[in-house]
C-alpha cells in the first residue's frame, strides 16, 4: 500500500538505521564466523591456516561435543515438555469463567522479569547442600542427600527446574492470550454434540492453539540454547564435570578461555543450522494457521 505517493527516498531513510545495525553487527560477523570455521587459528589470531572442513569433522568426532549436544537436547526437551505442559494447565484454569480470573492472568506474569542468573542463584539456595529447603525435603522423602556442586544429576536438575520456573510466566501469558482467541461457539458446539469437556479440549482447543504452541516451542528453544548462559556461568560453570556444559557454554569456553577459535566458529555454524531449522518449523506451523482461522 502507498499512503504517501511521491516520497521515494523517505522509506529507505526510515529503514536505513535498522538495516545498518543488522548488516554490521549481525550479518557481517555471522559470515565471518562461517569463514573462520574453515581455518585453524593460533591463539590470539596470529597464524591462520586453511583446513577445509577439518574443524567440523573434529567436532563431530569429539565425544565432549557430542555429550554437550545430547545434554543440551535433553535439557531443551524437558524445559519444553514440562514447561509448556504446566503453563497450558494453569492457563486453562485461569481462563475458566471464575471470579477473579483477571487476577490470575496477571499474577503469574512476574517470573518473566527474573533473569537466568537471578533464577539460578535463587534455586541454588533451594538446592544448597547444607541449608537448602529442597535438599532437605528431598532427603526426608528419598533419604538421598543431593549436592549439586559435586553431583552431575543434581546440577542438571537445578538448572532444569530453575529454567522451567523462569519461563513459566511468559508461557502462561501466551497461552492465556491464545486461549482467549479460541472462539467459544466452537467449544460449545462440540459440547452440544456430546463431547465431554476433556474431549472438547483435545479436539477443538488444543489444535486451535497450535500456532501459540509452535511459537512457544521456538522461544523456549532459544532460551534453552542461548539465554540460559547467565545461569550456567553464575551457578555451575558448566560442571560438575561436563554435566551442564551446554552448547552455548562450550562455545564461550572454547572461544574465549581455551582459545580454540576455529573450532568455536564451527560450533557457531552448527548452532545456526539448529536455530534455522527450528525457526523453519515455527514458520511452517504458523502458516498452517490460515486453515484454522478461516
Amino acid at each position, binding site marked *: *500500500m502507498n499512503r*504517501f505517493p511521491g516520497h*521515494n527516498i523517505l*522509506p*529507505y531513510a526510515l*529503514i536505513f538505521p*535498522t*538495516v545498518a*545495525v*543488522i548488516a554490521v*553487527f*549481525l*550479518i*557481517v*560477523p*555471522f559470515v565471518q*564466523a562461517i569463514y*573462520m570455521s574453515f581455518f585453524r587459528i593460533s591463539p590470539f589470531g596470529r597464524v591462520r591456516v586453511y583446513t577445509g572442513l577439518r574443524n567440523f569433522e573434529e567436532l563431530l568426532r569429539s565425544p565432549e561435543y557430542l555429550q554437550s549436544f545430547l545434554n543440551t537436547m535433553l535439557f531443551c526437551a524437558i524445559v519444553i515438555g514440562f514447561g509448556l505442559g504446566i503453563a497450558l494447565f*494453569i492457563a486453562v*484454569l*485461569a481462563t475458566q469463567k*471464575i471470579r477473579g480470573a483477571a487476577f*490470575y492472568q*496477571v499474577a*503469574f*506474569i*512476574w517470573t518473566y*522479569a*527474573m*533473569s*537466568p*542468573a*537471578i533464577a539460578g*542463584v*535463587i534455586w*541454588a*539456595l*533451594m538446592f544448597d547442600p547444607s*541449608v537448602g*529447603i529442597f535438599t532437605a525435603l528431598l532427603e526426608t522423602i528419598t533419604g538421598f542427600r543431593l549436592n549439586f556442586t559435586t553431583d552431575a544429576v543434581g546440577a542438571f536438575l537445578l538448572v532444569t527446574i530453575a529454567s522451567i*520456573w523462569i519461563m513459566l510466566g511468559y508461557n502462561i501469558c501466551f497461552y492465556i*492470550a*491464545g486461549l*482467549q*482467541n479460541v472462539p467459544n461457539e466452537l467449544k460449545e458446539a462440540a459440547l452440544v454434540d456430546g463431547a465431554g469437556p476433556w474431549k472438547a479440549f483435545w479436539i477443538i482447543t488444543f489444535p486451535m492453539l497450535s500456532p501459540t504452541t509452535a*511459537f512457544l516451542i521456538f522461544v523456549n528453544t532459544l532460551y534453552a*540454547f*542461548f539465554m540460559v548462559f*547467565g545461569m550456567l*556461568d*553464575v551457578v555451575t560453570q558448566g560442571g560438575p564435570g561436563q554435566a551442564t556444559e551446554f*552448547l*552455548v557454554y562450550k*562455545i564461550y569456553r572454547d*572461544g*574465549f578461555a581455551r582459545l580454540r577459535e576455529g573450532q568455536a566458529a564451527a560450533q*557457531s555454524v552448527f*548452532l*545456526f543450522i539448529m536455530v*534455522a531449522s527450528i525457526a523453519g518449523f515455527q514458520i511452517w506451523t504458523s502458516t498452517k494457521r490460515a486453515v484454522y482461522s478461516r
Partner: protein
Amino acid sequence: MRKHRKELLNLATHAVLILTLIAVAFPVYYAIVMGTHTHRDAYAFPPILIPGDQLWQNMLVAWERINLGRLAWNSFFIAIAVSVGKIVLSIMAAFAFTHFKFRGSWLLFPLTMITQMLPLPVRILPAFYLMASFGWLNTYWALTVPYLASTTGIILFRQFFLTVPDELSDAARVDGAKPLQYLWHILIPLSLTNIAALFVIEFVYIWNEYLWPLVVTTQADMRVAQIGLRMLYTSERAAAEWNIVMAGLFMIMLPPLVILILLRRQFAQGIAMQSTK
C-alpha cells in the same frame, strides 16, 4: 444440584491456582527472607521463614562489596538507551513498511525479521573482534548499538499500523501533512500502548542480558548488575554468606520487576497482539 457441583468445581479451580501461585512464588519469598537475616539466623535449622530486620544492613554490605551503585547505573543506562533506541528505530521501519510502496521492500522486510535467527552465540567471536577493531571494548557503544535492531518491535508496530484506517492518512494528506508530521502527530499518539509494551519487553531483556556484557567488558567499572550477581555469589562460595548474596539479589531483581508490574496491562496487550500476528 447442578449449580452446587459447579460451585465445587470453581472452588477446586481456585485452590489449584492459588497453590501453584504459592509454589511459584515461594523460592523468591524465601530468597528475600534470607536477605533479611543475620548470618546466624540465615543458617538456622529448621530454616526461619519469617522476615528479620537486617535487610538494610545486608543491602549496604552487598552494595559496597561489588560497587553495585556503578554496576546498576551501567545497567540502567544501557537498558533505557537501548529501549528508547529500539522503539524509535522500529517505529521508523514499521512506518516505512506499512505506508510506502518502494523497490526492494520484499527483500528488506524479511531481512529485518532474521535477528532472531542470528542470536549472539552464532557470531560471537567475530562480533567481539569487531568491537575491538572499533575501539568499543569497555564502552557504552558496545553495550548499546549492536542491540538496536528489533524484530519484535517492527512486528508489534506493523501489526498496529495496519489496523489504522486509511481514511486517517488520507485526511492528513489532503490537509497537506507531510508523512513525518502524520507519524509524529497522529500515529505515535495512537501507539502509546505498543510503545509501553515494547519498553517493558526491551528493558527487561537488556537489564537481564549477560553474555554480551561479559564478553565486551573487562574493567570493573563497566560491568553490569547481572555480572555483579556472579561476583556476589562467587564470594559466597568462599565465605558462605547467603544473607548478603540475597540482599544484593533483591536489589538487582527489583528494577525490571517494578517496571513489569507497573506496565503489566500494556505488556499483556502487547503479548496478545504478538500472538495474533
